[in-house]
C-alpha cells in the first residue's frame, strides 16, 4: 500500500515538474525609442505575463501598458494619453505565437538554442503578424527566452508630432525576456 502511494506521488511530482505549459508573471519587456534629439522615450515593464508550452512551442505574452515605467512623469503621461497608446482604451499589448523550429529545442537538457518565433502582435488595438529571432537557454531546469526586434509605430496606428520631429524613433527597439 505504502509503495503504491509512493509511486503515485512520484508520478504526480514528475508530471508537475515537467508540466508542458509554463508561466511567469515577471517577464520583462523594454523598448527604446530614443533618438539623437531625445534620450527620454525608453521604458520597461517587469510585470509581464508570459506562457510557454514546451510540447507544441506556443508562446504568449500580455503586457499592461500602464506598467511601462519611464524616468520622466511627463513622458509617462504622454505615453498613456489618447494621442499615443491610449492605455485606458487599449490597456494591454499581447503576443500569441509559436516557435517555428521548436523541435530542435530540448527543454530537459542544458543548452542554448537560436530559434525563430512568429505570431500576432497586438498593440494599440491593431494586430499584425511578426517574426523575430529569439534565444532559448536551458540551464538547471530554468528556461530563459530572449528576443530583440523592432516594430514600425505607424503600423500600429501610433503617430504623433514627436515622431515627425525626430524626437521619438519611428522603429523602436523592443527587448523581451522571460524565465520559466
Amino acid at each position, binding site marked *: 500500500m505504502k509503495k503504491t502511494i509512493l509511486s503515485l506521488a512520484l508520478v504526480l511530482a514528475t508530471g508537475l515538474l515537467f508540466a508542458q505549459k509554463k508561466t511567469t*508573471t515577471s517577464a520583462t519587456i523594454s523598448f527604446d525609442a530614443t533618438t539623437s534629439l531625445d534620450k527620454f522615450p525608453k521604458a520597461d515593464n517587469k510585470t509581464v*505575463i508570459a506562457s510557454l508550452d514546451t510540447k507544441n512551442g506556443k508562446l504568449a505574452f*500580455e503586457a*499592461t501598458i500602464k506598467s511601462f515605467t519611464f524616468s520622466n*512623469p*511627463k513622458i509617462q503621461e504622454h505615453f498613456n494619453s489618447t494621442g499615443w497608446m491610449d492605455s485606458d482604451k487599449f490597456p494591454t499589448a*499581447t503576443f500569441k505565437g509559436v516557435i517555428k523550429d521548436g523541435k530542435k529545442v530540448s527543454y530537459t537538457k542544458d543548452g542554448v538554442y537560436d530559434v525563430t518565433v512568429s505570431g500576432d502582435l497586438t498593440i494599440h488595438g491593431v494586430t499584425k503578424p511578426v517574426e523575430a529571432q529569439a534565444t532559448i537557454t536551458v540551464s538547471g531546469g530554468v528556461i530563459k527566452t530572449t528576443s530583440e526586434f523592432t516594430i514600425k509605430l505607424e503600423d500600429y496606428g501610433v503617430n504623433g508630432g514627436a515622431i515627425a520631429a525626430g524626437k521619438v524613433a519611428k522603429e523602436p527597439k523592443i527587448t523581451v525576456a522571460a524565465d520559466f
Partner: protein
Amino acid sequence: MLTTKITKGYKKWLIALFVLLLAGGAVIWWVFNLKYADTADVKADYTVNAVDFIKEFRTDMAAANKKYSEKIIIVNGTVSEIEMADTTANIKMIDTTANDAYVIFAFQQQHVAEAKAMRKGDKVSIKGSCSNGLFSDILETEYITFKRCAVNK
C-alpha cells in the same frame, strides 16, 4: 526725436522677446528634467488590505480602475511569491480563495534590495503606484500591477 522713440520701442520688444525665450527655455528644461520622487516619501492616497483589494477589483474592475489607477496605495498583505525579473525582484500577493487572482509589485530601483530581502510568508506593507487591474487570458484570472514600489515604513 522720432528715431529715439522707435529705438526705445524696439529695445522694449527685444527685451520682452528675450525674457519670453528665457522663460520658455526654463519651462522646457524643467519638464525634461522632471523625475519621479522616491515613493517612500510620497503620501499615499489609499491604504488597503491585499485580499479586500483583489476582491474589489474582481467585483467591479472598471470602478476599481477608476478609483485606484495611477494612485499611490499602501497594500498590507502576506508575500506569496518572490519572482526574479531581470536583475530585480517582484513581490506577489495571491488570493488562493479567488482563482489565484493576484497583486504584483515591481520596485523602484533604489528599493529593489528591500524586495529581495522579503521571504514567502512575510507580512509586509508595500507602497507603490497602482497601474491597473485586468483579466489575464493566459492565466484566466484577475491581476493588479504596481510600479515604483517601496516598503512602507
